[in-house]
């Protein structure tokens, strides 16, 4: 068993965190307002939209990756953007994996407040913008749960980033694709080192978020 290449592990870890946090940020920016809107509005077709979101929460990442790849490949609708086998392309795939989780958990948190929540705040005469701020404060534990779930999903995901990123050394290689590759190459030392880093990152991030979440109770 060969010894792990430390600089390589650091480089891959930094790229992994960059891709994951960028994707998470975009997913939160889109998903939280969408989840609040879906959770608090009643409209025709709402159930269908929620069913789609719920299905998306369990969608296999490799299928999401395939769908993104089908759009980004040359000669495909978004091929002109040149995002295939790039970090931004991987971010798009991971955003799509995280988005249903953020939307689904946010709308569940809003739903848990009960139908009368908005009425009770309205009867206190709270202006609309303040109502929204109050709502976010009320569902913050749910939002933290969404962050934990989304981060866990995209940090450990391998299928979509492999398909869209291509595991190119120094460019699109991330922890999960690197672990897979080094294992196949028989370099179990590097693979195990990368795995330890991945598990350590996951434990650290979810641990931190859990501490914050529990402290809020």
């Amino acid at each position: 068993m060969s010894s792990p290449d430390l600089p390589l592990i650091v480089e891959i870890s930094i790229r992994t965190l960059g891709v994951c946090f960028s994707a998470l940020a975009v997913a939160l920016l889109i998903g939280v307002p969408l989840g609040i809107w879906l959770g608090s509005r009643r409209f025709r077709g709402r159930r269908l939209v929620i069913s789609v979101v719920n299905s998306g929460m369990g969608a296999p990442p490799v299928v999401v990756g395939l769908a993104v790849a089908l759009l980004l490949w040359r000669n495909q609708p978004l091929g002109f953007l040149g995002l295939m086998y790039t970090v931004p392309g991987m971010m798009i795939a991971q955003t799509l994996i995280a988005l249903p989780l953020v939307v689904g958990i946010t709308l569940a948190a809003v739903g848990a407040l009960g139908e009368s929540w908005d009425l009770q705040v309205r009867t206190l005469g709270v202006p609309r913008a303040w109502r929204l701020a109050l709502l976010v404060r009320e569902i913050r534990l749910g939002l933290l749960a969404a962050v934990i779930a989304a981060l866990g999903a995209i940090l450990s995901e391998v299928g979509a980033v492999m398909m869209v990123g291509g595991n190119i050394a120094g460019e699109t290689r991330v922890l999960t694709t690197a672990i897979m590759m080094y294992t196949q190459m028989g370099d179990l030392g590097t693979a195990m080192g990368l795995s330890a880093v991945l598990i350590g990152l996951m434990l650290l991030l979810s641990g931190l978020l859990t501490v914050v979440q529990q402290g809020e109770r």
Partner: protein
Amino acid sequence: MDRAPVLRARDLRVERPSRSGGFELVVDSLDLFGGEAIAILGANGSGKTTLLMALAGLMDLRSGTSSSSQGSGQVTMVFQHALAFAGTVEHNLRVGLLGRGLDRSDEDARVESALEGLGIVHLRSRSAKRLSGGELRRLALARAMVLRPTVLLLDEPFDDLDPSGQELLSRDLLRLVKDTGIALALVTHDLRRAALVASRLAVLGGGRLLQVGKVVEVLSHPVDRDVAALVGMINILPGVIVRGEGRVAVEIEGGGRLQVATDLPQGSAVSVGFRPERLKLEPEQGALASSIGEAHVVGLTTDSILTRVTLEWMGRELFTHLLYGRGRQLAIGDRVALSIQSRDLHLMGIPKKVSPSI
């Protein structure tokens, strides 16, 4: 009433869609006055909460108006299941002041006044999510009072409170109305509490306002059998007016006569109602002018205050209430003499056109 109402509702039509076909609330006219409490009574599903929400401006009106004389923002409602926002009790009280542009000192004064007024100063730093049901009710009231409303609408304020909590809240509400001069409207199923706190009653049935009036007036003169049943006038007997020898009576279907005072002509079909506490058990038959004959005791239920007695009189069931001690002397099967004053009998269901004679 000469005073101008602080909330005036006219020709309200509110629709609440539901899977079972929807519900429509229709209120032609309802006024709320400052320094006065009105209790809204009604069976489940009669539209009580919908009415409060419409008055609070929380529902889209199909037609009509509900307007406060002091402008918008002066009507607030406390829901049956009040919310506890995340944070302390004090934070909860400040929620309603968000975005109002008040000075910090003004905010502090309002919060202090509400905390003291509802007796929850000691809970100021407690997490609102950890309050008991009674404490949460007080928090919700204090949160509303911070707004200095002119109209306060309460949905089932006594629900889930133990008897001492209900007593305390009743006194607080009476004091609140007296001290602040607000108009209070409370929805409740508890007739006793309603009569204790409110000076007027509004009775709802099937989405319609059936009767509005002073408590005594509604309790003793309900407009129809539905209202009578809701306000505890549980003795209702159908009959016809009979006249003779200078007296007027209702001849009850199945037998028995009750002397009444009315101008209705002979043969008028009526229902005669009387409250159970007005029906008296007498030591001996026929001793009084108000005697109506004998009855058998067929049922006795006793709580800590009253014994509820079911009687069989002329083949019909009548009900009376006795204070706990007196009720204990009775047993099922006892024969008792009954009496009731003419003034305690209330005629209902009088048709607009009556036949001149039968």
